[in-house]
């Protein structure tokens, strides 16, 4: 007779489910960053071609205005977004929604104020940016329209962040593509067609950004497509504002440091090497900004799911996501690094630069992996509440070490380009020392600075399963050991075991039926064969007993399906009807594009 006992095998979490989730986010994230970068490059080329050096200079002088908008947007929205993802992980969906609404409200208020004062003090601001009488009028034109576009520029961050939390990474990419393609088309129309000058370039940027923002907000909030977030205006409390600004500070600091870096490094290169060096640096910066599609894009792909897992105190899942980011990112860095070294002559040709840039490209290639590691750690610490460490690493990596190493190399009559990887490596050395200090002081895990008390307590277990009958029955049986180790009585043990089996079995069956129906509707398909392993649903499950509360959290892929959406008296739903009678609460949500079901017993 069949015996389902398999007591020697343990319940373990594998990375299959989280890999699938991460993989669905990483390509859109990389393409989103890349599209943004290419837009800036093409924008500059078009303006330079039509208006000339003065137009390019005016654009460059107005860069601080653009950076201020980015700082505001990233400060408010990344702060609120990270908090929202943590709250979702903590099953506080109302709280997550509140922070979204606060982000919208604060974003509108601050950007309207900036627009008002920017337009009011347009002349003195423009003269402060540049007092050259040939360029100032262009700055006034560009700045005026840029200020008018502040609201859409700032609110653009809302769908950028919150659509990622919803797992709608493709819509983020579409939004960026609208902005990029729209900007280029409108540049051509306004600059070449209508001859509007720099105002045309600003108008193209504002209109394309506004359309992209509207698209993103509609997908996020419209009744037909929204999932977790509802549009509304909500004034923040002081405590909420403080939390948002602290959590969003690394993103804002990053933008600020990038501006300072540009100013200081340009100055040092000019001082020691002349304008030729700055020209080379422009090429390197252009290529480096493309590489950010990997060094920024890959960690950005994991940021929302990291927040959700952190909110759940799910350390094993956090480690899996980090591992995916590192492996994925390193492979891409190696490919990109090889490409820029072997393609350095072509890059030089494209920029019209005389002489070889192979050595700078080798230095940039060497910097990619440490830059990736720094980027992953900075994002991770930002999400997991170590904002001070995150901010410190940003400041050191982007500004302090860049300035120091550039200065020292040139002061000693050496080429400056090794600063590109020295700044990253020095930051990693700092991290090794600082994280050791913090870990010892606050009794956290050594490098990731996680509180491991819960995972070592034995009160929580994470494991993975697929929807095969054997795996479901095996999970339902093996969980008994965990339950008994946590002093659950026989009724509670039975309830946990039953809930696991009945919920997973129903989800499996509904997905099989759906897959079969799909196959039946496809032409040239023979119905009835269910042996295709791709029909299997993947589950990541967490069972816990904490402070007397017994709970199970299911995450599963497959079709969006809420097992308790409606009363169903059919035979197939007998198990779920049983589960609803033995559980206290059952909550279903779609989180990060995944089905998520949480029950308490």
């Amino acid at each position, binding site marked *: *007779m*069949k*015996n*389902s*006992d398999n007591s020697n095998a343990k319940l373990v979490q594998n990375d299959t489910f989280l890999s699938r989730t991460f993989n669905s986010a990483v390509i859109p994230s990389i393409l989103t960053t890349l599209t943004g970068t290419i837009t800036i490059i093409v924008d500059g080329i078009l303006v330079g071609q039509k208006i000339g050096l003065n137009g390019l200079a005016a654009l460059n002088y107005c860069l601080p205005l653009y950076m201020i908008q980015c700082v505001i947007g990233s400060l408010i929205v990344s702060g609120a977004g990270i908090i929202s993802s943590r709250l979702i992980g903590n099953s506080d969906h109302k709280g997550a929604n509140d922070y979204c609404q606060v982000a919208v409200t604060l974003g509108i208020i601050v950007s309207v104020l900036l627009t008002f004062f920017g337009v009011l003090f347009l002349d003195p601001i423009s003269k402060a940016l540049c007092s050259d009488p040939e360029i100032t009028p262009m700055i006034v034109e560009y700045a005026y329209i840029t200020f008018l576009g502040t609201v859409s520029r700032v609110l653009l961050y809302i769908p950028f962040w919150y659509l990622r939390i919803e797992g709608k990474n493709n819509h983020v990419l579409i939004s960026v593509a609208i902005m990029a393609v729209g900007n280029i088309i409108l540049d051509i129309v306004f600059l070449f067609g209508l001859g509007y000058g720099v105002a045309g370039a600003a108008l193209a940027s504002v209109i394309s950004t506004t359309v992209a923002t509207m698209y993103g907000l509609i997908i996020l909030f419209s009744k037909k497509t929204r999932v977790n977030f509802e549009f509304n205006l909500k004034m923040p409390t002081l405590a909420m504002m403080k939390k948002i600004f602290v959590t969003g500070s690394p993103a804002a600091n990053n933008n600020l440091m990038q501006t300072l870096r540009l100013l200081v490094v340009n100055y040092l290169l000019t001082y020691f090497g002349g304008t030729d060096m700055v020209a080379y640096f422009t090429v390197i910066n252009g290529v480096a900004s493309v590489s950010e599609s990997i060094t920024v894009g890959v960690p950005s792909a994991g940021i929302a799911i990291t927040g959700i897992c952190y909110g759940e105190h799910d350390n094993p899942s956090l480690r899996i996501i980090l591992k995916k980011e590192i492996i994925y990112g390193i492979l891409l860095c190696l490919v990109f690094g090889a490409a820029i070294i072997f393609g350095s002559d072509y890059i030089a040709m494209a920029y019209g630069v005389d002489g070889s840039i192979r050595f700078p490209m080798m230095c940039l290639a060497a910097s990619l992996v440490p830059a990736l590691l720094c980027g992953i750690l900075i994002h991770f610490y930002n999400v997991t509440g170590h904002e001070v460490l995150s901010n410190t690493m940003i400041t050191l990596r982007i500004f302090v070490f860049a300035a120091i190493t550039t200065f020292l190399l040139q002061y000693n009559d050496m080429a400056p380009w090794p600063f590109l990887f020295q700044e990253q490596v020095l930051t990693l050395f700092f991290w090794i020392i600082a994280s050791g200090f913090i870990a010892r002081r606050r009794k956290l895990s050594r490098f990731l600075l996680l509180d491991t008390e819960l995972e070592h307590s034995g009160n929580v277990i994470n494991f993975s399963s697929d929807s095969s*009958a*054997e795996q*479901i*029955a095996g999970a*339902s*049986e093996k969980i008994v050991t965990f339950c008994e180790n946590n002093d659950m009585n*026989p*009724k509670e*043990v*039975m309830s946990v*075991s*039953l809930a696991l*089996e*009945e919920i997973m*079995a129903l989800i499996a069956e509904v997905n099989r039926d759906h897959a079969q129906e799909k196959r039946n509707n496809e032409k040239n398909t023979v119905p009835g064969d269910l042996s295709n392993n791709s029909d299997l649903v993947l589950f990541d499950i967490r069972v816990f007993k904490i402070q007397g509360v017994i709970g199970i959290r299911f995450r599963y892929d497959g079709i969006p399906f809420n097992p308790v959406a409606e009363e169903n008296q059919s*035979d197939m739903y*007998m*198990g779920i*009807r*049983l589960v609803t*009678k*033995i559980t206290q609460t059952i909550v279903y949500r779609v989180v990060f594009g995944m089905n998520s079901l949480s029950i308490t017993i």
Partner: protein
Amino acid sequence: MNINEASNGDQITLSVSGRVDTTTAPDLQTSITNAFEKSADLVIDFSEVEYISSAGLRALLFGQKTAQSKNGSMVVTNVTDAVKEVLDITGFSNILTIQ
């Protein structure tokens, strides 16, 4: 799950031990079917059954219907407290004969 079959005159007793779940319920159903081919009266001893899910309940329901079709009987005996609770919650206590 293990099932031992014992015959006592006209009555067959199936002693079930272990878990009756998605993977093992079909075996229980097969055993019940085979038993009813030999006799119209069936006793299922659940003293060693620690767990039953809806799949197991369906197998028992099938057995009950088979018993009725043969004008026979099916009795489930020595049910543990945990299993009894499942039978009570689902209303199967009113459908099956439990002793």
